[in-house]
């Protein structure tokens, strides 16, 4: 997240003395940054996916992941709903069609690449970064393995290499940032899809495309783009022919970016850091003064007694 909100929070921490940040950043304001306008994303059209798992195979190959336990051609994998794990950055799940007699619906799941990612907001070593191009990337070189990113992610995406005792990493889809996007390419899964179920492009264009499809074929699509506003917007977008809540999507996540959820608390930190010592020193001085007065009174009393 190379954004000024982060810089704003940086300035707060700088004020609290917990970080070494140059003064120039302190002057920056607190306006909300909604993302680089030319950032990329992927539009996933669920009406087109046939569950061939070519995307899974392509992802496995480009990321040099170990061969899957169930081969990519094997349909038995759909018997249960899967999630991403340390060896699988994307999974396709099958859901029964809520429309009577309809074909089952396949949903590809991977990192949503949030515009203001919970993982990046949670990470205490800045291992996650919302790149200017759109993908959320992970830096294994600084990760300490606290797994707060996994706790924070509303989509249950980041996975951990629990079985590696010495160099475990968080694993998730990077939208092929290093391999492809940074070199001008498109994500491997998008390229591999024989149904053109996924479209890679500028997020703003994808939203227009999604609207166009929905408006032109209102009998096929429901009027909703999942990811347009969810948790502040995501780079991965979905359109569907059936309501999203029927096919495993969380509809209760709200539209507030997760980074906002802790902002109020972090904003109060410098107040406590500055006002608390002043208050406590005040209390201490008051206590001392009161004790001093009590002692003077006592000795005055004794003097009076002596005089009598």
């Amino acid at each position, binding site marked *: 997240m190379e954004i000024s*909100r982060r810089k704003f*929070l940086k300035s*707060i*921490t700088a004020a609290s003395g*917990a*970080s*070494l940040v140059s003064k120039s950043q302190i002057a920056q304001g607190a306006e909300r940054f909604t993302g680089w306008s030319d950032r990329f994303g992927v539009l996933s059209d669920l009406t087109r996916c046939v569950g061939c798992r070519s995307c899974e195979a392509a992802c496995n190959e480009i990321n040099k992941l170990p061969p899957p336990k169930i081969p990519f051609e094997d349909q038995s994998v759909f018997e249960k709903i899967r*999630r*991403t*794990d*340390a060896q699988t950055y994307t999974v396709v799940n099958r859901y029964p069609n809520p429309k009577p007699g309809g074909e089952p619906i396949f949903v590809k799941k991977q990192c949503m690449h949030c515009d203001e990612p919970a993982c990046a*907001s*949670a*990470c*205490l*070593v*800045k*291992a996650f970064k919302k790149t200017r191009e759109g993908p959320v990337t992970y830096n294994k070189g*600084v*990760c*300490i*393995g*606290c*797994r*707060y990113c*996994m*706790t*924070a992610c*509303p989509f*249950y995406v*980041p996975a*951990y*290499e*629990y*079985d590696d*005792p*010495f*160099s*475990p*990493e968080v694993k998730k889809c990077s939208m092929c940032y290093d391999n492809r996007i940074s070199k001008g390419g498109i994500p491997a899964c998008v390229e591999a899809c024989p149904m053109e179920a996924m479209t890679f492009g500028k997020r703003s264009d994808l939203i227009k495309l999604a609207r166009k499809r929905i408006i032109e074929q209102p009998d096929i699509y429901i009027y909703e783009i999942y990811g347009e506003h969810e948790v502040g917007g995501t780079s991965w977008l979905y359109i569907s022919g059936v309501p999203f809540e029927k096919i495993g999507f969380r509809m*209760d*996540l*709200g539209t507030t970016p*997760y*980074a906002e959820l*802790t902002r*109020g*608390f*972090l904003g109060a*930190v410098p107040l*406590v*850091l500055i006002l*608390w*010592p002043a208050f*406590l*020193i005040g*209390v*201490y001085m008051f*206590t*001392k003064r009161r004790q001093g007065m009590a002692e003077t009174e006592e000795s005055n009393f004794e003097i009076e007694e002596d005089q009598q």
Partner: protein
Amino acid sequence: MTGYIEKKYTFRSWVIEQLFMGKTIKEYLKGLITPFNLVAALILLVGVPVSVYRFSQGLGPSTNLSDNNPWGLWIGFDVMAGVALAAGGFVMGTAVYLFGLKEYHPTVRPAVLTGFLGYFFVVVGLCFDLGRPWRLPYPMLVSIGVTSVLLLVGWHVALYLTTQFVEFCPALFEWLGLKNFRKWAVRLTVGATIFGAILSTLHQSALGALFLLTPGKLHPLWYSSFLPVFFLISAIIAGISMVIFESMLSHRVFGDRINHQGVDFDKLTLGLGKAAAIGLFAYFALKWVGVAHDNRWEFLNTPLGHWFLVEVFIFVLLPCLLFTWAVRKSNAALVRFASIVTVIGIIINRINVAVVGLNWNIEDRYFPSWMEFIVTITIITTGLLTFRWIVNRMPILNEHPDYSETDQHVLERERVTAEQFLNSP
């Protein structure tokens, strides 16, 4: 302590007196064979290999943690509950040094030691949980993630551990006989107390704020925008209750070491009970404000809702009433009992937030593996052994005769000096 003589040690006599408590090594080793030590040895006998297994084989084989449940017992109990229960140091330090409640002075040193060791072993527990514990200094030195509440927790726990060590230093230096160092450490007391109070306010609440990022995962009865306040208030109550509880244990276990003249511990216990009652009542009210604020009433009549009611009524309101009743009847024993209920309640709360209530809405639920339990028990045991080792040697529960502020000691010291003066040729 009669016949006070200011001792002059050689290195050898110091080791025998201060490390082996005046016994020969043979006697000392013999004295180690007690039922408590046997149980502790048994725990370590299992705990040490399990720890080796955890660090050599990784988290996967040793724990039941998963991609859906990345945090378990070690975070819920060792870290969350551990930090709350170690709040006594900051609470008593603030009360005595800043608010001038001097009569509570005898409780400060044990509370500070508990706090220091508590935090130390929280960090030990955290190291078990972290994937790469050797990178613990990274958030301070290598890459600073300033948007993270966890960064604040990390910094503050590190700074607070240092602060508590400074607060512990007078006792340490008295034990080592380093008078000049002690003088400097004592001068730092008020500053360290203020610093500790600020750090504690922030990181105790920050531990609650960590879960502000889990609105879709944490059960609605435990998720609240008031989480930071809940955690801070309950930590203060936990700190007070632990001071009561620990003072009770210390009197049973280390009764012979306690030499505070003219200190009525029952009276102090009652005073602390009063504070705990007020704190618990505020906390109880606040919990319901939380439910009302987010309009979560509909969740109360569900299985987890019932568990929430158990937490709030049996472990918050009940001890609150017990404390109140006990203080009215001047029943110190009942205050002690109430403190135990409170401590259990705070532990339950932290586990509810970090484990039971988290991911309540998915099928893949977590229960700790036996090795996770063993590690937690081992860490507690090691903490208790360290506490006992220090209390048996350093002036924590007792006053060091050289630095005593009790009148009798001063008189005794003057008498001895006078005698030495008269007897000198």
